[in-house]
């Protein structure tokens, strides 16, 4: 069942979202060749907990860290560790925080030093896919309008959309109904209504859309080894249009 949030619930999610946005801004400042992915996790955890919030990922279904850190061909759910970022990598960082029981969730993909033009284009197109997904979040529209907007933009640019992992409703739990695919025809699925809160998260591959899960049972990688980018925002539908709850200042 898709829950409709009250104004107060959305304000709590916005408070959680502001902390997520601040943590990601810290991460963007620290990412450089040589950065350890475990240090990204440490910075995120400290940022979130010092503001009185709870990291939403640590312990979620047993995930062992406060941030997902996924490099190059890793799509999502990478586990931070002793790995160092190299010049030319792209790194996706996904962060969640809980304030008074309400969750904010967002992700960015960041270039590490100088990266190839094709990787920069992948990052840019994925960011644009998220912008198009947000623009499709209008009351009276249909859920599949969101995925259709993402798929159209990604494929027109020669990239592919991950099918096996999707966005989701969000609120008192990180994963609430509905699932929000990044593909499909327009005009299908539930009608979008004010008060719905969704985590929109296009995962776009430079190569084919197929993915597989690595030996740690968490890290999702592209099947063909091509690079992947991921952007995410938590968004509330309002009478006045979409409200991004995880926007950076």
């Amino acid at each position, binding site marked *: 069942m898709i829950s409709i949030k009250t104004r107060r619930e959305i304000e709590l999610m916005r408070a959680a979202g502001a902390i997520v946005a601040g943590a990601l801004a810290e991460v963007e400042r620290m990412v450089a060749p040589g950065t350890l992915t475990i240090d990204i996790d440490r910075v995120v955890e400290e940022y979130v907990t010092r503001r009185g919030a709870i990291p939403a990922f640590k312990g*979620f*279904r047993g995930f062992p860290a406060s941030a997902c850190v996924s490099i190059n061909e890793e799509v999502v759910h990478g586990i931070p560790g002793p790995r160092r970022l190299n010049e030319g990598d792209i790194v996706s960082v996904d962060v969640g925080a*809980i304030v008074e*029981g309400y969750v904010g969730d967002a992700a960015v993909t960041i270039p590490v030093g100088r990266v190839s033009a094709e990787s920069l284009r992948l990052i840019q197109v994925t960011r644009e896919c998220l912008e198009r997904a947000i623009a499709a979040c209008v009351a009276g529209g249909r859920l599949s309008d969101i995925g259709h907007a993402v798929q159209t933009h990604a494929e027109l640019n020669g990239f592919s959309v991950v099918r096996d992992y999707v966005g989701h409703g969000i609120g008192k739990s990180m994963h609430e109904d509905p*699932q929000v695919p990044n593909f499909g025809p327009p005009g299908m699925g539930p009608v979008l209504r004010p008060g719905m809160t969704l985590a929109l998260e296009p995962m776009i591959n430079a190569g084919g859309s197929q993915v597989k899960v690595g030996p740690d*049972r968490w890290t999702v990688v592209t099947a063909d080894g091509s690079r992947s980018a991921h952007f995410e925002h938590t968004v509330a539908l309002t009478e006045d249009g979409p409200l991004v709850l995880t926007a950076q200042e």
Partner: protein
Amino acid sequence: MSWKSGGKLSSMPRFRIGQIVTSRAGRDAGRTFVVVGADGDAVVVADGDLRKVENAKRKNAKHLVAHDWVEPGLESRIMSGEKVTNAEIRRVVEAWRSRTAGGGR
């Protein structure tokens, strides 16, 4: 954090050591526990309070609601035979309550 299309996020089993569960049957219905072991088809749970680790309760898996949260590191410690204190279990339950803003008993 993205959702596995059509199913669970990861391929984890329904219950794991360290996982938060809520009883839905018996005198402890509604109470929150931590999974501390398995015994045949039963799941062994404790809350460090009414049900201590040394007197953990065997529960029919059907009588438990599994939550999404698994305390990091607890599984490997228990599996390696390390002692877990009742105070630690109480802290895990308390942390879960704070995550869910007062949910559970």
